[in-house]
């Protein structure tokens, strides 16, 4: 992504070597992706989902956000 977009910089961070960073970003499992300090992606995702989620940081508030309260799928199926 960084190689493709001139506005993106990507860091692969070895968490055990930099415990201060791991603590700051509350890394309890890997891989964990943090985008602009505002969006977190846990684990690996398919390419589409990963890019979309990562770029959702552009519309997210800059402060670290609390985990989303919405956990399930919205059930507003219009009926058949």
């Amino acid at each position, binding site marked *: *992504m*960084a*190689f*493709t*977009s*001139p*506005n*993106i*910089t*990507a*860091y*692969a*961070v*070895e*968490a*055990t*070597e*930099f415990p201060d*960073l*791991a603590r700051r*970003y509350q*890394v309890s499992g*890997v*891989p*964990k*992706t*943090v*985008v*602009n*300090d505002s969006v977190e992606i846990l684990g690996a995702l398919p*390419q*589409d989902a990963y*890019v*979309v989620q*990562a*770029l959702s*940081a*552009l519309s997210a508030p800059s402060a670290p956000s609390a985990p989303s309260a919405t956990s399930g799928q919205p059930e507003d199926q219009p009926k058949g």
Partner: protein
Amino acid sequence: MSLISEADQAKLRAAFGEMTSPVRLMFFTQTLDCETCLQTRQILDELPPLSDKISIEEVNLILEGDKAKQYGIDRAPAIALVGGNGHGMVDSRIRFLGTPAGYEFISLIQAVLLVGGRPAGLSPENRARLAAVNVPVTIQVFTTPT
């Protein structure tokens, strides 16, 4: 003695043989308080003998602080990949913080191949999404060696 087995060296040599442009590994290091800097340098030193397109430039984090800042590096060991684009060397904006051992070594090799000319493997849709990014974005991916 090499850190990489002969079989793996042959595989790497073949993969690097596909590279179409040069890649420079900027290695940020410091003399004191860096337990893994030496090991990182040893790992990186394995690569240039496998390809004439790969080079290493060592940057002292303390003595060359301005250069480190230019690449957004504030700790060691760290690696920034710079690639040739036909006109000169251009920052790929791909960084590695920490020792590139274990899976990180594989990630580093993948990054070298990408900067060296291998297609990124992004779908047209994702290319379009990335082309629309017009503000600075920093992505950090935390990993462990195993």
